[in-house]
């Protein structure tokens, strides 16, 4: 049957959707094998696929679907209980169908794949436990053949040729090749009496063909194959006796136990499909994109009218322009919504992925999801699909332990993978957590050292949290053995890069033995981003807010004095750290027109690095619609795209990473020593504090910009000079201050150890070393001192990480140690 392409295409789209549904259903069924509604749905789906490909003449696909249908038919009737083996076989079937569909899509042909193994397996499973005597006599060929023949017999009905119909209705053609004569005889025997017997419950004699089938099923499970083969006949009689058949048909599906295989699905498919068609329309994505463009254009026109209208006294014009404003906004919102897809469209694959992986690694894992209906722009959905899949695979492969290990650790044998999505602050948050073994910092350290990713002395001083973050380094993989599932050395770094590419962030928290949580924050849409508009050389450029840290404006003396030269490279001291400066005008090779005596810096972050971009002026912040650059300009790495401004002119969008690379800022090299404790984002109102422990209880916070270096020195190197503990450090003599003693020694002192953890602080051009217990963490916090200082050397106390923490006043502390001056 030669059908025009669009119909086949529709069949493919529909079938793919159905198959995705199947994946989910099967996995769900494993949890609850008896769920009649799901069993019914699975059966109907396979049946629909089978029926439709019969219609298109895809015989091979049909034959494969058919054996699956037979098996499902018996599962649904409760004759066989779904077990992992059956589920695996059925999932394999889904994959095969998917494969064939893909081939049909690309070549229009079914291909010549050989599926006899799968057919044999399915047939064997279908003849399952109820037929102990039959399996022995060469099950494979004997069963496979009838299935194929049955399939061809069934392929005929949809053509609605009366002659063929009658043969299909006749049970003989399907039964004869199926089983030895004795059996077919047996089969026919009970059928006849049934046909004859009028049943009291169902008075309509026209339904006779269905009834025997339904009755037969529980009694003679062995003939499942031929049964469902015979079953298509009842609906086929419909044209002959239309009135009668229409009435019983809708009645048949409700009883889930009823067999009436093809009848159920055939009719049951009707009403829901119709309902779906009533409320949903398939729309080509290209059309949506075009609509989006047009709406963008309308918004611009609206903006122009809004600028123009107030200049006129005409009340009518004003009113109309207001109305236009409202309608346009609503239209824009509506069109944006059409491009939104629930994140569930990617998540739905995960139960299947997890199931397959888990059974491959011999693990038991339950997938839980919250917020599947959280919506994202489809471009984002596309972009996060692979990273998310990777994270999920990682959790299954590396995160969750085998049942034996879990039980030994006092956890339930079944691991739990929890996916959560929610909207917050104009962003979408996705959390993927498992209750597995967590990331072990010591292992990470060892691995990072062995791979040469960090320096040994740095590794010693890193906090657990910092160590955990190392798994995002390129070339890192903690799996003991490289498996074929994950752990190929490309991994979390790719996830991180991909998420950051779309303006998102990734954060990992892990507790050894308890589990790991990966938090991803991504913008709602890529098409519209908030951006800062800057000017340079008379042109406007847009900088996405996601990479923007702060703006600095230097006037007069400041402009002259604060921009210093580091061997010719301009730098600026931003709260004690040297910030490399890059001139946008120089990078773009355009003539700048800065305001006289003013330097405007845009502090940007690219690839964990900060730099200051010198621009002529700051214009405004705006929501911009991102449009890709044409082919002729795509090689320009400094630009991420273009946008149309409110006045209708085009502005280029800077690619911050590209700018950083062009300027040589974002080259991979180890961080400068002054930032050893982690470079955190230096937000204007936030401060990075180094958290240290004194003894077992007390915690101190030291402003990180006071910290020059962290050092570990042997206790033996401490010497005395002028009644003061000192040690030699890079040719200098550094006074050694024991913070615990200086602050009055509340609580137990740090234990005496062979090595001392010291923090080298800088104050007034001098260095001093503070001896502390240990380095805990570096945190970025908004410093709210909740208790005034009663003791000298402290600014006060605050709460950091849910612990009361004393904040050190470095100058005061040094003065305390030596009132005359260090």
């Amino acid at each position, binding site marked *: 049957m030669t059908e025009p392409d669009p119909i086949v295409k529709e069949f493919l789209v529909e079938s793919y959707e159905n198959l995705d549904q199947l994946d989910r259903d099967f996995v769900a069924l494993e949890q609850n094998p008896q769920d009649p509604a799901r069993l019914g749905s699975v059966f109907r789906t396979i049946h629909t696929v089978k029926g439709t490909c019969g219609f298109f003449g895809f015989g091979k696909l049909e034959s494969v679907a058919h054996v699956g249908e037979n098996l499902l038919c018996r599962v649904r009737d409760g004759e066989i209980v779904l077990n992992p083996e059956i589920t695996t076989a059925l999932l394999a079937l889904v994959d095969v169908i998917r494969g064939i569909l893909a081939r049909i899509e690309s070549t229009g042909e079914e291909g010549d794949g050989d599926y006899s193994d799968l057919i044999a397996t399915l047939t064997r499973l279908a003849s399952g436990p109820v037929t102990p005597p039959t399996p022995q006599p060469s099950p494979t060929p004997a069963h496979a053949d009838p299935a194929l023949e049955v399939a061809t017999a069934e392929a005929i009905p949809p053509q609605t040729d009366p002659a063929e119909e009658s043969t299909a209705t006749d049970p003989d053609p399907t039964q004869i090749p199926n089983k030895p004569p004795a059996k077919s005889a047996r089969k026919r025997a009970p059928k006849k009496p049934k046909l004859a017997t009028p049943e009291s419950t169902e008075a309509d004699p026209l339904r006779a063909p269905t009834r025997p089938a339904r009755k037969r099923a529980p009694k003679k499970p062995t003939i499942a194959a031929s049964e469902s083969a015979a079953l298509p006949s009842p609906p086929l009689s419909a044209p002959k006796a239309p009135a009668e058949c229409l009435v019983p048909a809708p009645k048949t599906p409700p009883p889930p136990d009823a067999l009436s295989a093809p009848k159920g699905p055939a009719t049951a498919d009707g009403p829901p499909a119709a309902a779906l068609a009533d409320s949903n329309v398939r729309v080509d994505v290209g059309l949506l994109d075009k609509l989006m463009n047009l709406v963008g254009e309308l918004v611009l026109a609206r903006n122009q009218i809004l600028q123009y209208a107030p200049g006129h006294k005409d009340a009518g014009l004003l009113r109309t322009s207001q109305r236009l404003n409202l309608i346009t906004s609503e239209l824009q919102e509506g069109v944006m919504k059409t491009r939104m897809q629930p994140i569930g469209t990617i998540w739905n694959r995960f139960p299947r992925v997890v199931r397959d992986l888990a059974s491959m690694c011999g693990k038991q894992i339950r997938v839980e999801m919250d917020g599947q209906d959280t919506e994202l722009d489809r471009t984002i959905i596309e972009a996060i699909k692979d990273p998310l899949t990777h994270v999920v695979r990682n959790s299954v492969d590396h995160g969750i332990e085998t049942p034996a290990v879990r039980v030994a650790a006092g956890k339930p044998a079944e691991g739990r993978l929890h996916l959560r999505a929610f909207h917050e602050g104009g962003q979408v948050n996705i959390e993927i957590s498992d209750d597995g073994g967590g990331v072990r910092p010591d292992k990470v350290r060892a691995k990072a050292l062995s791979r040469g990713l960090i320096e040994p002395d740095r590794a010693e001083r890193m906090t657990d949290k910092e160590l955990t973050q190392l798994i995002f380094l390129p070339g890192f993989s903690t799996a003991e053995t490289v498996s074929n599932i994950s752990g190929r050395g490309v991994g979390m770094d790719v996830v991180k890069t991909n998420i950051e590419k779309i303006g998102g962030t990734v954060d990992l928290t892990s507790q050894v033995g308890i589990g790991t949580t990966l938090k991803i924050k991504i913008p709602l849409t890529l098409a519209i981003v908030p951006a800062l508009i800057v000017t340079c050389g008379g042109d406007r450029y847009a900088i996405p807010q996601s990479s923007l840290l702060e703006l600095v404006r230097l006037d007069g003396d400041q402009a002259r004095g604060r921009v210093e030269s580091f061997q010719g490279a301009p730098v600026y001291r931003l709260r004690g750290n040297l910030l490399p400066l890059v001139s946008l005008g120089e990078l773009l090779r355009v003539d700048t027109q800065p305001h006289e005596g003013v330097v405007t810096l845009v502090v940007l972050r690219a690839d964990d690095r900060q730099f200051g971009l010198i621009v002529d002026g700051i214009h405004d912040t705006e929501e911009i619609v991102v449009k890709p650059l044409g082919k*002729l300009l795509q090689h320009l790495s400094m630009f991420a795209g273009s946008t149309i401004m409110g006045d209708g002119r*085009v502005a280029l969008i800077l690619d911050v990473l590209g700018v950083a690379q062009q300027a040589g800022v974002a080259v991979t090299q180890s961080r400068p020593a002054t930032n050893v404790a982690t470079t955190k984002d230096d937000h204007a109102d936030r401060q990075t504090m180094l958290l240290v422990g004194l003894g077992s209880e007390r915690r101190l916070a030291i402003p990180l910009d006071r910290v020059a270096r962290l050092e570990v020195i042997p206790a033996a190197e401490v010497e005395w000079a002028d009644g003061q503990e000192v040690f030699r450090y890079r040719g200098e003599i550094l006074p050694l201050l024991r913070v615990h003693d200086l602050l009055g020694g509340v609580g137990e002192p740090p234990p005496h150890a062979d090595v001392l953890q010291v923090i080298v602080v800088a104050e007034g051009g001098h260095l001093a070393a503070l001896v502390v217990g240990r380095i805990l963490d570096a945190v970025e916090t908004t410093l709210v001192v909740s208790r005034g200082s009663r003791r000298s050397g402290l600014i006060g106390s605050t709460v950091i990480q849910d612990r009361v923490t004393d904040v050190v006043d470095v100058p005061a502390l040094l003065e305390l140690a030596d009132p005359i001056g260090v």
Partner: protein
Amino acid sequence: MSELNQYCTFTLDGLHFGVEVRHVQEVVRYQEMTRVPLAPTEVRGLINLRGQIVTAVDLRRRMGLPDRAADRNPMNVVLRRDDGATSLLVDAIGDVIEVDEGAFERPPETLQGTAREMLRGAYKLRDRLLLVLDTEKVLALTP
């Protein structure tokens, strides 16, 4: 059928050029452009064509002809392409003309340089030659 032989014509430095009508999306008058730093010199900028951002290629520069006088604004011949639209900046727009296939000639061997690469040939019109641009080649800018 006849569309195949229809050409959108324009002038450039006194020369008469044509591109196949089916490649042309539209012809628009001069539009304000946003320059693109670091782009090839032939790319004069980006224009906003009713919400569609179009790259404008200066055909004079592309053909190795001298720049037009600063006070003369070019016209846009917007070409339809698979990956969006691209505009050719030309001096003036002429008519859409139908040509006789028999009047076509390959470029003479003596024609050398960039111009030769970008010309498919010429139609011998009654009073002049219509130079036929190979739009693929014209837009195959190498950065």
